[in-house]
């Protein structure tokens, strides 16, 4: 496996059904001689999972036989939910988490169509724009009555 493939396969600590590549946090992997440098772009400024991500990427690369590993942060350009891949969006939906909508964030009363990840109904409503992690909002379905989480656009 290439260093990119190893790093790309590391699961996200909070959303373990997604890899760091699915999430768009893995910003690049460079192999230079015996040195591997992996670049991560944090999601939110205060995301506490970035420490785990960096440690996991480091450990996976070392376990794969790369001895000289450097994990670095890349802050520019900032992370956006647009960086979540199609595969990542599919895995989120399969796990019952509504994926973000492509495009810039829309604030205010603009009505967004968010499908219920349980029953597919479009009759959903936002309960709170803030949820269990920085990247999620809390929603509920008015048809099947199930609450669900949703990755909010940023």
């Amino acid at each position, binding site marked *: 496996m290439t260093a990119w493939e190893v790093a790309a396969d590391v699961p996200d600590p909070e959303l373990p059904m997604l890899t760091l590549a699915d999430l768009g946090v893995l910003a690049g992997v460079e192999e230079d001689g015996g040195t591997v440098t992996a670049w991560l772009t944090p999601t939110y400024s205060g995301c506490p999972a970035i420490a785990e991500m960096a*440690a996991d990427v480091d450990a996976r690369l070392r376990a794969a036989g790369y001895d000289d590993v450097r*994990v670095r942060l890349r802050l520019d350009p900032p992370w956006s939910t647009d960086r979540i891949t199609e595969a990542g969006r599919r895995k989120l939906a399969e796990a019952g988490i509504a994926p973000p909508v492509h495009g810039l964030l829309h604030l205010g009363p603009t009505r967004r169509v968010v499908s219920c990840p349980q029953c597919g109904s479009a009759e959903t409503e936002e309960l709170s724009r803030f949820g269990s992690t920085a990247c999620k909002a809390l929603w509920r379905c008015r048809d099947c009555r199930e609450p669900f989480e949703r990755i909010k656009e940023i």
Partner: protein
Amino acid sequence: MTDDHVYLTLSEAPGEPEGEARWAYGTGFADPLLGVDTALPPGLDGADLAAYCLMLGDDALVLAQRLIEWCTRAPELEEEVALANLALDLLGQSRQLLTRAGQADGTGRGEDDFAYWREDHEFRNVRLVEGPNGDFAQTIARLLLFSTARHALYERLAGFADPVLAAVAARGVKELAYHREYATSWTLRLGGGTEYSAERMQAGLTAVWPLLDELFTAHPVEIRLGADPAELRGPVLAELAEVITEAGLAVPAAAPMARVGGRAGRDGVHTEALGLLLAELQVVARAHPGATW
């Protein structure tokens, strides 16, 4: 592989560089600017940049500390979670800004050195962020003022000469958009609710309003860096007036809180509240210097 789930890595972690010293988020990751290019752009004064990063970083740190006081005390669980999320964003911004300050001033001091080992007169936050929360409406009022002003500032700083500060601002402006939206929606809801809720919201705005102007009062460091906050006064006041009027409330007419011999928060002159806040923030770090877990 043992890292398929985070809690497995915490309990097993064979061969981890941090070994058993890593059991919680954040441990073993001391540098929030890990590997980011720390070179100063030519022509930018390191001491001034450090001072400016402390001003903005202290604003965020102190307000984050105030917001988390709502944990277990908020009127509803959803609001508690929301306020904690806002605090987490601010704390993250603060960690990067304080770290940048230690790089820019050449001392190599880290975020913990700044957060835990400075006295109140060494903090450079505006007085707006340090006072007690008051009731929920007053908390919202302060958040409305701060997030509207900070959003406008970060928009401008996204093009700042220092690439690290610019990146923090570019990230932060998106987060502050959510903060401002949260504070705005609650201002409208309380203002347009019952007579009593409107009264409380009005009282909250009136209480914090005298502290607003300090955000627009330039410190010499800001002037030298070409970041005069007075430029924000007009647009931010207009935005606030629009929200407050839409909420059916009155824009307070209170005069700015007096400065002390011409000095205020940016000069290290604070109200008594900051010392009490810092005592709580710093007590564990000072009781166990250098402790790790």
